[in-house]
């Protein structure tokens, strides 16, 4: 049974990765550019896989090889705690949001290792930049998830979904999803929070990546987008809850919606300098998440 469920999660993850990649290639149409067809992601991945992976000068070989694997694994582990139907998750963790929180923190370390391992200047700058921005983003994330745990009286995601039978957390805690989107943009290295990359450092942590290594890194980023979106759907949009259609279908639809939102936010919001972003995170976003927790607490009582 659980092997079947695991296979299901893996297939869903693979489909989600493809969908996310297609969203990325559809988005230019909003700006008057060309939208690519559904095959475009597969073609781009094939283009990476037929090319060599260049080794850098005196790299940290093991970390270079395994950083994409850790990133991918963390996404899959995070996705495993998300309930796919009412009362059913691959991993029935009583502390689901703690598991997700650990995945978030380890993703920051993984991205750092990815930038550290090639022993090259631009990836190194990206690595340290991302660590500086990724750390303070963990704080709003935890406040938002803890606020969602209050009405459920539990840290389990199954209980959090269950607590949304009458009204979704999106309604009870309106600031939650926007704050959590900031976390999602950070974890998936996108747009305004993509401090691991950027044109100014020639692609940052992946500036020296080529071939299969770059392919795996891109896939891992998309896998994290899927996991993050599924979690956000469960925490704020009632996850598998919904009329008529079966639970997993509802979860898939809501996940796709959050993915599209994240892709859009990543494309349409400018990225400021790291120093200013650090200021924005601590001085504006953190107090805002304090306020969010306080208001959610009062609503829950």
């Amino acid at each position, binding site marked *: 049974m659980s092997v079947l469920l695991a296979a299901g999660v893996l297939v869903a993850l693979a489909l989600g990765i493809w969908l996310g990649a297609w969203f990325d290639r559809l988005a230019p149409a909003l700006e008057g550019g060309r939208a690519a067809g559904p095959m475009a992601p597969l073609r781009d991945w094939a283009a990476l896989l037929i090319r*060599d*992976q*260049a*080794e*850098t*000068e*005196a790299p940290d*070989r093991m970390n*270079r*090889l*395994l950083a994409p*694997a*850790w990133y*991918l*694994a963390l996404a*899959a*582990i995070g996705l*495993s705690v998300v309930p796919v139907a009412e009362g059913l998750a691959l*991993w029935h963790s009583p*502390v689901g949001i*703690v598991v997700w*929180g650990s995945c978030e923190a380890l993703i920051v370390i993984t991205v750092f290792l990815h930038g550290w391992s090639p*022993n*090259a*200047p*631009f*990836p*190194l700058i990206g690595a*340290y930049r991302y*660590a*500086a921005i990724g*750390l*303070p983003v963990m*704080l709003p994330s935890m406040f938002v998830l*803890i606020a969602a*745990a*209050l*009405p459920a*009286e539990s*840290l389990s995601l199954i209980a959090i979904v269950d607590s949304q039978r009458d009204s979704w957390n999106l309604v009870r805690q309106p600031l939650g999803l926007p704050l959590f989107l900031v976390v999602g943009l950070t974890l998936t290295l996108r747009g305004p929070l993509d401090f691991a990359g950027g044109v100014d450092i*020639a692609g940052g942590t992946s*500036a*020296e990546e080529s*071939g*299969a*290594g770059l*392919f795996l890194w891109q896939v891992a980023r998309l896998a994290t987008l899927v996991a993050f979106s599924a979690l956000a759907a469960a925490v704020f949009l009632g996850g598998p809850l919904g009329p008529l259609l079966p639970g997993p279908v509802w979860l898939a639809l809501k996940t796709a919606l959050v993915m599209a939102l994240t892709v859009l936010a990543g494309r349409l919001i400018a990225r400021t300098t790291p*120093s*200013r972003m*650090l200021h924005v995170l*601590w*001085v504006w976003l*953190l*107090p805002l998440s*304090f306020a969010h*927790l*306080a208001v959610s*607490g*009062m609503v829950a*009582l």
Partner: protein
Amino acid sequence: MDALLIIAAWTGLAALAAWGMQRQAGATAPLAAPFLGGGTPDTHAWQRYHFRPYTMALVFIAFEMEMMFMYPWAVVFVREGAKALAEMGMFLGILSVGLLYGWREGIFRWQ
């Protein structure tokens, strides 16, 4: 048991995929050289790197530790009611004073 199995299985699977797909062939010296837009470096990139937001990192540790208290608090919050709200309010209030002090000292930026 579930936990161990799931973490081990996903990690193992991902590591196997990474191991199987990637071939880091030995590159020639000019191919391996770090990219600087046609430029050259004097030294290796690895260094005792000046991590600019180091003061922020210290404050971060304080905030991250407080999360530990919030997990059990979240579970009993509704049962304990206003008392729990007041307690956490005071705790966050004290932390906010620290935040304000840090802001005044200008620690939330590149040093």
